[in-house]
């Protein structure tokens, strides 16, 4: 491949990005009768694929940085599902650092989640059966993905694969030994019944409607402006 071809390729790949939709948050159960002063809740903080697919194709490990009052506040999780369960009484900010595989990206990414234990409605009863769940949806975007990255994740359900520029072909993926690795997806996770659903459709609809209104208003204003200009013109020519 000549140098110009390489740079041509690079130019086309400039806008190619791979995005991984994730959901991160916590689920907290009140311990009820078993609650003590310092351990009133049992909570799990986690990062999962937005469609509950296995993130370990992209994420190598997740590091959860807890409040300093915890023993060993830096908890490292080396495999999916990337989650951590603890018990405590306080709400605090947890810093989650995602480390990716070498072929994905060398830089880690930080997420911040405020641990929620107590329900929004303070007057309501606390239940040991129904957890307090707070989740945030986001997408991890990788720019200028390497060919090995693209090859590795094509057809993987956890990843939003981009449309490649015309004429671009990928090498066939290296077959992975699926049987040996344990399941990393969260489809049958014990907490999955509490997971929230994130659908972009509602938000898109809302945004489209809002844009429509604004655009109509803009058109109206433009007409009024030209009208006023017309009225002011005779004065201006003085």
């Amino acid at each position, binding site marked *: 491949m000549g140098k110009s071809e390489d740079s041509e390729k690079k130019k086309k790949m400039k806008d190619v990005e791979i995005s991984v939709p994730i959901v991160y948050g916590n689920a907290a159960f009140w311990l009820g009768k078993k609650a003590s002063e310092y351990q009133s809740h049992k909570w799990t903080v986690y990062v999962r694929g937005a469609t509950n697919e296995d993130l370990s194709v992209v994420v190598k490990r997740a590091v959860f940085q807890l409040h300093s009052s915890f023993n060993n506040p830096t908890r490292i999780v080396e495999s999916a599902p990337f989650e951590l369960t603890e018990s405590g009484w306080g709400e605090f900010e947890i810093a989650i650092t995602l480390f990716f595989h070498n072929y994905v990206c060398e830089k880690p990414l930080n997420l911040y989640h405020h641990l929620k234990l107590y329900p929004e409605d303070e007057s309501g009863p606390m239940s040991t059966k129904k957890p307090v769940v707070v989740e945030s949806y986001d997408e991890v975007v990788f720019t200028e993905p390497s060919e090995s990255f693209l090859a590795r994740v094509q057809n993987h359900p956890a990843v939003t694969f981009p449309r490649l520029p015309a004429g671009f072909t990928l090498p066939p993926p290296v077959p992975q030994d699926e049987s040996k690795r344990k399941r990393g997806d969260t489809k049958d996770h014990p907490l999955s019944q509490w997971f929230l659903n994130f659908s972009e459709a509602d938000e898109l609809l809302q945004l489209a409607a809002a844009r429509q*209104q604004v655009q109509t208003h803009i058109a109206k204003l433009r007409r009024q402006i030209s009208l006023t200009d017309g009225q002011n013109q005779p004065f201006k020519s003085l």
Partner: protein
Amino acid sequence: MDAKDILGLPKTPLSITQEKKSRPQKDSQRKPDGISREVYALTGGVAPLMPSIDVSQLKRRPPSDEKITWQWLPFTSSARKDNLQLYHWVRVVNGVPPTGDYSFAKYNKSVDVIRYTDEEYEKHLTDPKWTKEETDQLFDLCERFDLRFIIIADRFPTPRTVEELKDRYYSVSRTILVARAPSPGEVAGHPLVKEPYNVTQEIERKRALSMVLSQTKHQERKDAEVLAEAKRIAESRMAARAAEEPDLPIASDIGPESAERAVGPGDTISPSNVQVPAPAAAPSTSVIADNSSTLASLRMLRVYLRTYALEQMVQAASSSAGLRTIKRVEQTLQDLEVNLKPKVPTKAVCAEHLELRKEILTLLNLQKQLQYKEAEGSSFRDGSYGDMPGSAKRSQRAADQDRTFVLDTISFGGDRGVKREQKRKGPGRASETSSSPAGAHKRPRKMKASDL
């Protein structure tokens, strides 16, 4: 018609003479204690708020129980390796001279020049351009002159440039360090190993510096012009190529660099700019430039969260807007029942959100424009600029009408949003007809103002 008459100022310069009279009075008031007259004048003839010197302390005498004499005594310094006997004045208290090393000996620092053994030289350090004798001499001089290479170059027996000497010294030291270290990891942090001396870069850098230094004034001006021109071309090029490579490396080269470097890229940019086709309608190139530079910086990150990207893009889009405008945008979003930060930030949602924010900004700008034009119009019609309260009231009313108009349309839109979408035939017309009947009770007031 004297200007002073209009302003109501006294014709005779009374004030000036008054000033002259008061000044000599102030000058004679110069009796501060403890500070000399000159120092007082330095502060502008005004006493400082806090006394800088405590006056009572100025004439303090040493405690009377101690007997102080000054004696001319010999001393030794640990910094000297010879036996030179020096003398100096020493403050002797009660007949006891002070003890301890010479107080300035601690400043006698020197560089730790690494010396190699002959064995090490044979093993690692032979070089076709350097004899062992020369290298030995170099190291002797380095130790003697504390790595002051200008002096070393001056004293070096054979003619060598400073860069050559530095190169030899640093590469030898580095090789020795690495060779002596038990494992490469241990020395990796040592500055000699971490940042090796780059001869060619140094030569180039010094040449460039001397070129800049020896520029004439005329050349300096010409270079500034070329730099400005190149910057402009680079920016418009970035705007034109928003979708393609923004070519940041060239732009940064143009930055603070030497004269001749700037001419090179400047030349290459202009021909290539001509070839780039004119971009499609861009409302303002500065906004596009902002966007493309944000995109470029995001690309540099390699990995980022989409919410972060949206934040950056929103900031870039609102960079020209003031704080109040941004608040108004957010208020409008809330009125439209749109989340300020999308709950499901997918690529599509973020793009729509950004576009919506931009459209709201346009909307607010247009409203302001309309207000301004209407105020202009009403001031024309009223006929005199002096009628301030009247036109102010008018423009205020117009502003109020605008606000209620906006809220009215939006809240109306909120109710009927779904229905409107079903009914829509063409974008503009249908909504006009559907909104006019309901808004009728507010509309007539607005029409009156514009119908005048």
